[in-house]
Structures are given as C-alpha cells and as structure tokens.
C-alpha cells in the first residue's frame, strides 16, 4: 500500500533539471508555432499552400489526427473498464490524459483553419439582432457539436476517477497545489456512500463515453462521406475513421506507457504484460483497418468510375504513390510483421517503436484521405497539387510540442497511474505480478 503511494506520488513531489530543460525547449517550439499562427492571421490564410481546388489541407488532416488520437483514452480506458479487464488499472489514467489533451489540440486546428478566425463565434447559436442561427444541416455543425460533447464527456470521465486521488494529494502535498486539490476533491473523505456514488457514476458514464467516442469520429468521417467529392463520397468513411482513430490512439498509448514507465521507473506497475496486451489490440486494429481499406479500394477499382479512379490511380501508382506505400508499410506491414510474434510483444521498446510508426503512418493517411480526392475534381481543367507551407508545418510542429508540454505539466499535477484503482486491484488480488 505505502509503496504504491510512494512510487506514484514521486513524480509529483520533485522535478529534475532535465524536466525544466524539456519544458523550456517545448515552450520555445510552442512559441514558434504561436508566432506562425499570428503571422497567418495577420497577413492572411494564404500563408498556407492551399489553393483551389484544394481548400482543405494539413490543418484539417491534423484535426482528424488529433481527434483520432483522443480515442486512445476512451477506447483503452472505456472498453477495458466495461469489460472489467484487470490489466487496465495502470493504463487508464495515462490514456485518459491523452484524450483530454489531444481534444484540446484538435480544437485548436479548427481555429488555425478558419479564413476569418476573428468571426469564429458565428458558429455559436447566440442570440442576435438578425435572428440568425448556425446551419444545423451542415456536417461542420454536427462536427462542432460532436467534438464539444466529446470534450465535455471525456473531461468528466477523466475527472471522476481523479476525485479520490485528489483527496489523497490534498493530504500529501503542500504548497500552492494544496488549495487546488482541496477544491477539486469535492470534500472526498472516502466514506462507503461516496465510493458507491463514484462507482455508480463510473458505471453510467463508461458505456456513454464509448458511444460518444464511436459517434464523434463517425461524424468527422461524415464531413467527407456526405460530400460530393469523388473518393470522399463513400459509406465506408464513418467506420473507417473510427477504426483508424483507435489504431493510432492505441499506438499513442504504447508510446505514453513506455516513456512514463522509463522516466518514472514504473516497471513494477507497467509490465511487459501490458505491452503484450496493447500489441494484441494493435494487431486487431491493423487487420480491421486493412480490411476496410481493401474493401474501399476494391469496389472503386472494379467499378472503374473515372472520377474515382483518377484518385485511386494517383494513390497506387501516381504522384501520391510514395507517401501511400510508405503509409501502408507504417500502419499495416510493420505492425503485422512484428506484433504477431509473442516474444516481440513483450519487448516494451519494440511495441513503442511500432506505435511511433503507426502514428507517423496514420498522420500521412489523414493527409492522403484529404488531399488526393480534392486534387482531382470532376472537371480535369482544375486539377491541382499541394504541399504544406512552412507556416503550416511550423503550426503543426508547434501544436505537437504543445501537446507534449501539456502532458509534461499534467504529470506534475495528477498521478499518471490511478492510485486508488491500483490499490483496489491489490485488494481484488487479481493483479498480476504483485
């Protein structure tokens, strides 16, 4: 018991010089990104390399990617809590924090993308003289509502299991954080009644958040699926986006688990068994995603409808072939070649690296979903090409740095492993290796 407290509170109680150096470096990159955004708003959205017919580029791709990354927490934590998988205990908090932070980053990209970001509030249904409403028939409104719902729900979902831990921190940690913990722990004293209320609340919100998770990336998929653009207009987009999101999200969890375990010496909690389980999950998502990809390409290729075939040809053998096949290697071949081997799955560094490849591949995949179909509109006179500008790339790197920075700060504020759930596991006596 006491060793759990000691091990898991340690990251909150001290910080090394390397930690501060990391904060400074990340902060500098974030500042660069913020500067690039300021420049873009000040001079014009033309600082991107977008032009007709490619009106959406890497900002929207990044939005999809980060909403996808947010599926890490919900999927891992929600589904495992639902299925009462005991091995979830040290994983859930790490994953839920990722969800929370990725959603914040994803939302930022909506603002990076807007042509007149200073008029963003037109998207809100606020009372106004002209009695104008936003257009609820627009998939973008569905999207805004879905992401807002998901952000709210996942914040509650992150917060609820934090309450007992906040109460513990209130007792154990002094200084400027103490009053915050006092407020956040909502007067938790650990009575039988409080535990029952918490467990009921978790039982209610867990299935709900899994459903919200499925709906949110379905709706992001429908942004494209309901359009007329060749090779976007497809029924497969919603399930495909959800599975793709889980694929990259679980990969991200593998990275997070590895890094935190390494830095904070959590080997006693995050064991090779966890990487084994994550590896198995990744094999499943790889196969399902590959199946959906194959189904989509086969139907387009067999029908040979020219406006769709232009896109598929460009991907398989045309100008997008290099990123396409690189992506296929990253998200299909590498996971299948490695993670199907039981010995490999028990090698944390290996699983982490596969997670890195999956996420690089999935980012490219998001760009490839977006750009090639827009490049080949039905009137060939208007065909175009696109590669992101330095402003776009700086903003993307800056937001990645912001995500890591927020995570690094969060680690000093909440225990990365749910302390009470670890202890509960000890009581249940079913946790392996203790």
């Amino acid at each position, binding site marked *: 018991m006491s060793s759990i407290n000691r091990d898991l509170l340690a990251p909150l109680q001290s910080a090394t010089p390397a930690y501060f150096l990391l904060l400074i470096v990340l902060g500098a990159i974030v500042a660069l990104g913020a500067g690039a955004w300021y420049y873009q708003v000040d001079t014009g959205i033309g600082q991107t390399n977008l032009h*007709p017919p490619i009106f959406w580029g890497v900002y929207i791709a990044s939005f999809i990617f980060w909403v996808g990354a947010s599926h890490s927490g919900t999927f891992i934590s929600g589904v495992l809590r639902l299925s009462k998988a005991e091995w979830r205990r040290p994983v859930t908090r790490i994953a839920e924090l990722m969800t929370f932070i990725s959603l914040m980053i994803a939302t930022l990209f909506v603002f990076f993308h807007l*042509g*007149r970001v200073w008029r963003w509030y037109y998207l809100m249904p606020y009372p106004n003289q002209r009695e104008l409403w936003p257009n609820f028939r*627009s998939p973008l409104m569905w999207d805004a509502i879905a992401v807002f719902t998901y952000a709210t729900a996942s914040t509650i979902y992150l917060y609820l299991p934090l309450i007992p831990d906040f109460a513990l921190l209130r007792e154990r940690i002094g200084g400027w954080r103490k009053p915050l913990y006092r407020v956040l722990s909502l007067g938790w004293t650990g009575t039988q009644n409080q535990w029952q209320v918490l467990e009921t609340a978790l039982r209610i919100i867990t299935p709900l958040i899994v459903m919200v998770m499925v709906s949110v990336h379905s709706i992001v998929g429908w942004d494209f699926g309901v359009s007329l653009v060749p090779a976007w207009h497809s029924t497969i987009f919603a399930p495909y986006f959800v599975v793709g999101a889980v694929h990259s999200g679980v990969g991200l969890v593998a990275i997070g688990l590895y890094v935190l375990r390494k830095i904070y010496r959590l080997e006693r909690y995050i064991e090779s068994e966890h990487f084994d389980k994550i590896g198995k999950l990744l094999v499943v998502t790889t196969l399902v995603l590959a199946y959906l990809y194959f189904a989509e390409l086969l139907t387009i290729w067999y029908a040979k409808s020219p406006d769709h075939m232009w896109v598929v040809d460009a991907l398989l053998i045309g100008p997008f072939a290099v990123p396409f096949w690189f992506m296929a290697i990253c998200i299909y071949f590498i996971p299948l070649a490695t993670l199907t081997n039981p010995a490999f799955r028990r090698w944390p560094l290996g699983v982490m690296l596969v997670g890195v490849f999956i996420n690089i591949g999935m980012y490219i995949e998001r760009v490839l979903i977006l750009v090639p179909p827009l490049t080949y509109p039905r009137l060939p*006179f208007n065909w175009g090409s696109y590669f992101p500008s330095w402003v776009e790339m700086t903003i993307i790197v800056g937001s990645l740095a912001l995500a890591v920075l927020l995570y690094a700060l969060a680690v000093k504020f909440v225990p990365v492993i749910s302390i009470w759930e670890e202890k509960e596991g000890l009581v249940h006596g079913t946790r392996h290796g203790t």
Partner: protein
Amino acid sequence: MADTNKTKSHKWEMVIDLDRCTGCEACVVACHAENNIRISGEDEASEGRAINWIRIERYWEGEYPNVQTRFMPVLCQHCDDAPCEPVCPVYASYHTPEGLNAQVYNRCIGVRYCGNNCPYTARQFNWFDPHWDPPLEEQLNPDVTVRQNGIMEKCTFCVQRIRAGKEQAEKEGRPVRDGDIIPACVQTCPTSALVFGDRHDPESRVSQLARQDRAFHLLESQGTHPAITYLKRIA
C-alpha cells in the same frame, strides 16, 4: 396579397452556346472590371490562386497534328440543388427566391467546405486582402462590395445589375423586359455565345435557346440542376 402576386417571380438563367465561343476571354475581363475582382499577379496565378468568376476551360481533342481546341466557359452554375448551400455552417451560402445562389460576404467565416463540395470548382477564395495598383483602384465599381481576406466569393450573375434593372422597371411601372438585365460577361461576349434572361418567361431568348436539342447541363449526373444550360458544339 393579390397585389404582390401580380409581380411575376423571376428565375434567372443563362445559356452558353459552345458553338459560338471562341475562347477570347473578353467575358473574364468584363467580369473583373464589373465585380471588383482582385488583380492577381503572376506569382499568385502560378500558385493557382488567381480569382476568376468565369473562366475559359481549354480541352484538346485528337492527336497531333490534328489537334482541336475546345473552349468551355465555366462560372457558378447557380444550381437549384446547390451542393455548396447545405454544407455552410453559417448560412453564408444561400438560395434567393429568384434562383440565385448567393454568397453573404459578411457572414462567411472561411471554412471553405462549399469550395470543396462544388463539383464545378466555381468558388474562389480570398487568401489575402485584395490590392489594386494605382490608378486601378479608381475604377472600382461602387455597386459591388470589395471582399476582404478569408472569405469565399463567386459569380453573382451580376446581382447589382439585376437589382438595378428591376428598380428601373418598377420606376417606369412596367414588368422587366427580356434584355433589360445583362450581366457583364453577356454584354461583352463578341459572338453572343452567352445569353441571360428569365426562364419563367417562356418567350425570353434564354428560354427559347434552352429548349433546343443541343441543350445539356454540366455534370448533369450530379443532380445539381444548374441554372446554366450549355448548347453542344456541332461544328
């Protein structure tokens, strides 16, 4: 009620005779002058960002040396079922009662979904604030808004001329006559390849031409019901 019903509603449409188009691009220039379309330099044009509300698409037919150039003027098709309209989250793209597909510049926030969803790539975006080298700023049309950075724009069928024509007719206490209202491109076309008018008037030139056997719509299979009827090239 009875009084307002007397005024017959209009349905503005255009006919483009591909047999008559020579690809001279006079319509493009006229449109620029009429509608305060920004002047894009060489750099912007090479980036694919030159804004044209009407463009002449060139297609080549046959193998060298027997190559023939085909010209096709393409502008906003003012679709009856316009794909750009439902996707706009703020109602900046909407349908007027007279069948125009209108763009409300003040309302547009630049999400650019409409641009993606237009099968004709008719929509153009202001990537930067517009700029006219002196003395070109002296020739701006006072009846047309200058569009700022970050919003969509496209052909309006010269809505300012439609409005002026209707006001003139009302002042003179008569209905709008066929030929009263002419968009800049139609006015300029030296071969009269472009014809504009009211489709609700069965005797208007545009209605007569659109009933021809040569008539077709661009990307008809998309079901957008465009207000622009093309006449097939036979020569």
